[in-house]
C-alpha cells in the first residue's frame, strides 16, 4: 500500500518537473525521448555484440594497419644492427600504386572474378529455382546436401580436390579417359579451371540457400495467376521468380565478388602442383602475405591491404549502384 502510494506520488511530481521547467534554474529543458525512439534504441542494443566484434576484429585492425602503413623499417650496412623505423607518410602507398606485380595480380583476379562470379550465380540460381519447384520436404533434403561443401573449410576442400585432380592417383582423370578426354588438372593451362570448379563447388550451397530463402518469400498466388494465364514453369521462373529475387542476386553477387578478389587458400595450395603458373604473387592477398611473412615488410603489406580493401569497396559500390539503376 505504501509503495503504491509512493509511486503514485512520485509520478506526477517527476512529470511536473519535466513539463514545467523552472526559469530560475537557467537550464535548457530536457527533451523527453519519444516512445518510438526508446524502442529503436532497445532494438539497436541487440546489435551490440556484433558491433563490438566488428569494432575489435575489423575496425581496429584496419586502423592499426593504416597506422603501420605510414612507417618504413630500414636497416643499414650488412643489416646486422637494429633496424630503424621512421615515418614516411604516403611512401608505401606511392610504391604500391606503381607495383606492377601487385596490380598484375589484381587484374588476374579481376578477370577470374568476371568469369567465376556469373558462373557461380547462375549455378546457384538454377539450384535454388529447382529446389523451389519441388515439394518442401524434398527441397529440405537437397538443401542440406548442397550446403555441405560450404561447411568444409577452404584448405580442407582444396586438399580433397587436389587428391581428386591428381593425374596419377585421382579418380577424375580415369573417368574422363573413359569418354576419350585426357585432362590433367595439374597442367599450367588447367589450373584456373581446377580452382574455379573447386570454388563453385564450395560456394554454391551458401548462395543457393540465400536465393532459395528469397524465392520462398515470393507470393504463391502470383504463380497461380500465371499458370491460369497459361505460363509454363520456365516462363514463371524467369519472368516472375528471378525479377522478385533480383535484390538477393545483387547481394550474393557482391559477396561473391568480395570473396573472389580475396582468394588465397586455393591458389596457395595449388602453387605446389603448378608452380610455373601460380607464383608467390599470383593473387593480391598472396602478394600481401608474401610481403608480410616472407619478405618481412609489414608496413608495405599494410599499405597493400588498405589499397585492396579500397578496391574491393569501390568495386562493390559500383556494382551495387549499377544493379540498383537496372532495378529502377
Amino acid at each position, binding site marked *: 500500500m505504501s509503495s503504491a502510494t509512493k509511486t503514485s506520488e512520485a509520478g506526477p511530481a517527476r512529470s511536473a518537473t519535466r513539463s514545467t521547467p523552472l526559469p530560475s534554474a537557467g537550464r535548457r529543458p530536457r527533451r523527453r525521448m519519444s516512445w518510438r525512439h526508446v524502442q529503436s534504441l532497445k532494438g539497436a542494443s541487440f546489435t551490440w555484440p556484433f558491433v563490438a566484434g566488428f569494432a575489435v576484429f575489423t575496425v581496429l585492425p584496419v586502423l592499426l594497419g593504416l597506422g603501420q602503413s605510414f612507417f618504413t*623499417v*630500414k*636497416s*643499414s*650496412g*650488412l*643489416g*646486422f644492427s*637494429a*633496424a630503424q623505423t621512421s615515418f614516411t607518410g604516403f611512401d608505401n602507398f606511392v610504391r604500391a600504386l606503381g607495383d606492377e606485380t601487385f596490380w598484375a595480380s589484381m587484374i588476374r583476379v579481376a578477370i577470374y572474378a568476371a568469369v567465376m562470379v556469373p558462373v557461380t550465380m547462375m549455378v546457384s540460381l538454377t539450384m535454388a529455382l529447382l529446389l523451389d519447384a519441388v515439394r518442401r520436404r524434398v527441397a529440405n533434403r537437397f538443401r542440406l546436401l548442397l550446403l555441405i561443401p560450404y561447411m568444409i573449410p577452404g584448405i580442407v576442400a582444396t586438399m580433397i580436390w*587436389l*587428391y581428386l585432380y*591428381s*593425374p*596419377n*592417383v*585421382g579418380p577424375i582423370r580415369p573417368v574422363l579417359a573413359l569418354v576419350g578426354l585426357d585432362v590433367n588438372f*595439374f597442367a*599450367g593451362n588447367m589450373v584456373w579451371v581446377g580452382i574455379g570448379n573447386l570454388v563453385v563447388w564450395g560456394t554454391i550451397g551458401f548462395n543457393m540457400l540465400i536465393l532459395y530463402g528469397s524465392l520462398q518469400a515470393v507470393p504463391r498466388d502470383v504463380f497461380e495467376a500465371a499458370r491460369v494465364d497459361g505460363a509454363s514453369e520456365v516462363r514463371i521462373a524467369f519472368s516472375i521468380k528471378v525479377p522478385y529475387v533480383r535484390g538477393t542476386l545483387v547481394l550474393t553477387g557482391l559477396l561473391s565478388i568480395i570473396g573472389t578478389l580475396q582468394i588465397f587458400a586455393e591458389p596457395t*595450395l595449388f*602453387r*605446389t*602442383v*603448378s*608452380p*610455373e603458373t601460380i*607464383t*608467390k*604473387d599470383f593473387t593480391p592477398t598472396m602478394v600481401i602475405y*608474401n610481403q608480410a*611473412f*616472407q*619478405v*618481412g*615488410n*609489414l608496413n608495405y603489406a599494410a599499405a597493400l591491404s588498405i589499397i585492396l580493401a579500397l578496391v574491393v569497396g569501390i568495386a562493390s559500390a559500383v556494382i551495387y549502384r549499377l544493379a540498383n539503376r537496372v532495378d529502377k
Partner: protein
Amino acid sequence: MRKAHTRALALVAGVAALGLLAGCSAPSSPSASATSKKPAVIDVWGWDAEMTPNIVKAFNASHTDVQVNYVLQASNPATVTNFRNVMKSKKGIPCWVPATGPVTTAVVNGWAQDITKYIKPIESKFSAGALAGAKLDGKYYGFPSGPDATFALVNEKVYSDNGIAVPKTWDDLIAAGKQLKPKGITVINLAGEDPSTLIQIEQLAGAKWFAIDGDRWKVNFTDANSLKGADVIQQIVDNDLASHQTYQDRPSLYAYFDSGKLATVPLAWWSLFGYQTNLKASLGTWKAVDFPQLSSSGTFKAPGIANPGIVPVGCKDPAAAVEYQTWVATSAAGIAASKSAKTDAISLPTSLKDVSKYTSAIVPDKLIDPAQSKDQVGAVISKAQSAAIGSFNEGPDYDAWFPELQDQWGKAMAKQITVKQALENVQAFVVQDLKTKGINYTVAK
C-alpha cells in the same frame, strides 16, 4: 535518495574493479623470492609432434634447474609466421626456435640472441661444420647444428636390369638418364616447387651467392661456378630426363617412386623411414650410394647446409635454453630419448664430430636391398656427414628470395625460362629487396 544510493553503488563497483585490475597487473612482490628458487621454465617451439615431446619429457624428468614447456606448432611455415608475429609483438617470445632459415637472416631480422658466452665453454663437443654454421661475424648467434648431408638412393633393379652402372658423377647421371629415357624411366625427380637439388649442386660447384665484403653484401648468383651448377640442371631439363612429381601430392609421388620408373633419389638421413613407410612394391630394391659429384677427381664432398636453431632476442633465460639444447644434441640420454616409437630409430646427432656409431641405427629394415647391410648404409651416411660442405651463405634476406627462387625454378622446370635466366631473375629480386631494406650490397661482375 535513490540517485545517491546508485552513485554509492557505482563508486563501490568502480573501486572494486580498479582493485581487481591492479591485482592483475601488479607484480606479486611477496612471492618473488620464492619464485627465484623454482626451476627456470622456458618455452621451446617446434613442429615435430613425434620425437620432441618424448625428448622434452625425458629432459624435464632428469633436470630440476630447468623445465621445458614444448609449444607444438602446426608446421614449419606456421612456425615462421607465428614466430614473426611474437617477435613483432614482443609478447610470448620462446627461448628456442628450431632452424627456420639461415642464421644470417635471423640476425638481420633482429631475432637471434648472441649466445657466444654460453657456447664457448662447450665448443669441444661439436664438429667444426656445426660451429661454423652457428657463427656470424665471430659470434655465435645459433646453437651449433650439423648439416643433414645429402646422399642418394638408387633403384638397384632399374640400373642392373638396364645394364647401366650407378652414376658417380652428374655427367654419368645425365648419360644414364639418356639411356633410360626411351624405356620411360626418369633418372631423377625434380619437383617444380622444390629447388633444393639446384642448391645442392651449386654447393658442390662452389657457388657463393652471398658473401660479406667489408660493410656490404656481395651478391653473385651468376658467376662461373653458379652457371656450372645451373648447366647440369639445364641438361637434365632440356633432355627431359627428370620427372616433376610434386611433394604436395604425396600419394602420387610415392606411387611414381614405387613404379620402377625412377632411378635416383637424393635424400638426407631423416627421409629414410618416410620412404619405407610409403613405398610398397619397390621395398628392398633401393641401395644407398654417395651423392653424385661434379667431377670424378678431387675430394669427395656432400651437399648439406647447417641452419642452426636460435635463442630469440627477448628470451630471458638463454642459459637454460642452451642447457636444454646441449643435452638434446650431445648427451647419450638426449640422443636416446629421440627414439621414435613408430620407427624405433633415433634422431641422428649431426652436430657431433663423429656420428658413425649412430648411423646404422637410423637405417630401416625393409627399404634397402638385403645385399647392402645396415652398416654399409650407415657408412654411406657417415661419409656424407663427414664430407658435408655445411657452409653456404644464404644472405640477409633468405626468407624473401627463396620464394622467388621457387617461382623461377618452377618456370625453368616448365621450360618457360632457362635455369641461367632463373638465377638472373633471382639476383635482380635480391638486389631490389636489399635496396628496399637499406642493406648495403654490390653485385659481382
